[in-house]
């Protein structure tokens, strides 16, 4: 049987947060959002750069499972998550999350499907470069999630 010890530590942060002065919530949130808006051009540029890298890796992959190649694609896609929201393209984050899910499933089961990966990359490009109506973006994302979910179990997606 494992033994455990509990303590209730004093949190300095709790005291600091209550220190006189500070900022009203509304003001702080507005300031943080204003700060983030300045990063928009950088985030768009980085998403474009990551997409170009992902396309290059994808083009070099064959039709068989390639551990390093799939790993490199995952590493590229995961770096983009969170940038879409800052540049007003939150759907890109969802598409990248779906791509990471798919690549994680493929790595787990040592499988590869260029079609499933390719459709994610095309969607990434579409969502970043065009202003789709919300319903259109939702339809694209729903399709991507279905594709990545197909590969969540070892034998799914075959046939």
């Amino acid at each position: 049987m494992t033994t455990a010890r509990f303590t209730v530590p004093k949190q300095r942060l709790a005291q600091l947060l209550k220190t006189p002065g500070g900022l009203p919530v509304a003001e702080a949130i507005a300031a943080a959002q204003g700060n983030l808006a300045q990063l928009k051009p950088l985030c768009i540029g980085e998403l474009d750069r990551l997409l170009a890298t992902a396309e290059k890796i994808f083009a070099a992959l064959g039709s068989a499972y390639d551990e390093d190649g799939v790993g490199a694609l995952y590493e590229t896609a995961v770096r983009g998550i969170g940038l879409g929201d800052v540049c007003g393209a939150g759907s890109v984050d969802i598409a990248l999350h779906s791509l990471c899910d798919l690549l994680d499933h493929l790595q787990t089961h040592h499988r590869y499907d260029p079609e499933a990966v390719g459709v994610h990359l095309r969607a990434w490009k579409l969502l970043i470069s065009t202003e789709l109506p919300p319903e259109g973006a939702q339809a694209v994302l729903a399709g991507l999630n279905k594709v990545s979910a197909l590969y969540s179990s070892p034998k799914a997606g075959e046939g």
Partner: protein
Amino acid sequence: MGLDPTSRARFNLKDASVLLLDATPLGMSILVQIVTGLGAKTLHRCNDLETAQTAVEGNQIDLAIVDSLPPSGEGYDFVQWMRREAGEPNCYTPVLMTTSHTPRSQISRARDCGANIIIKKPFPPITVLERIIWSSKEGRKFLFSETYVGPDRRFRNIGPPKGGKGRRREDFTATPLPQNHVGLADTVDQLAARARAETAEIDDAPELDGD
């Protein structure tokens, strides 16, 4: 948690020493822009484990916002190190773990690293502030055991994990409770009431208002 973004309640992060760990320059920029917007002035910006460990060893850290550092997940190792090796007071520092995507193989690592809370990217500033306030709440137990060091993951008194055996003195039973039992296990209504009370507590201006 439900913090109202239009609230006039005040909070003060000016004197808090905040550690930020993110390996990507833009990821770091996003964190910096959010926490400086929220009023933090003292930032320890770290882009790798080594820098982060040095910052923890040389400073009192009041809040850490740590990325999981995919694909390696080294951010989880850093939090585990902080909980086990950093010593007081930094071992108790509230840690907000950020993650872009958690691979299936790393889920238990994320659960067991000892972070107070995990935030999935993208995260708006209001979410970060809510989590900071929630993580700083006093009175939450901190657990030292062979397999886990960190804040008590049972922060609602609903007994042992579902399907698990009671391992604590206050776990009266290891067997499922009868359907009509009201007591140790909170009812849905009780949980909802507690959630409402917690929200009200966060929104309560006098609690945060230092003026």
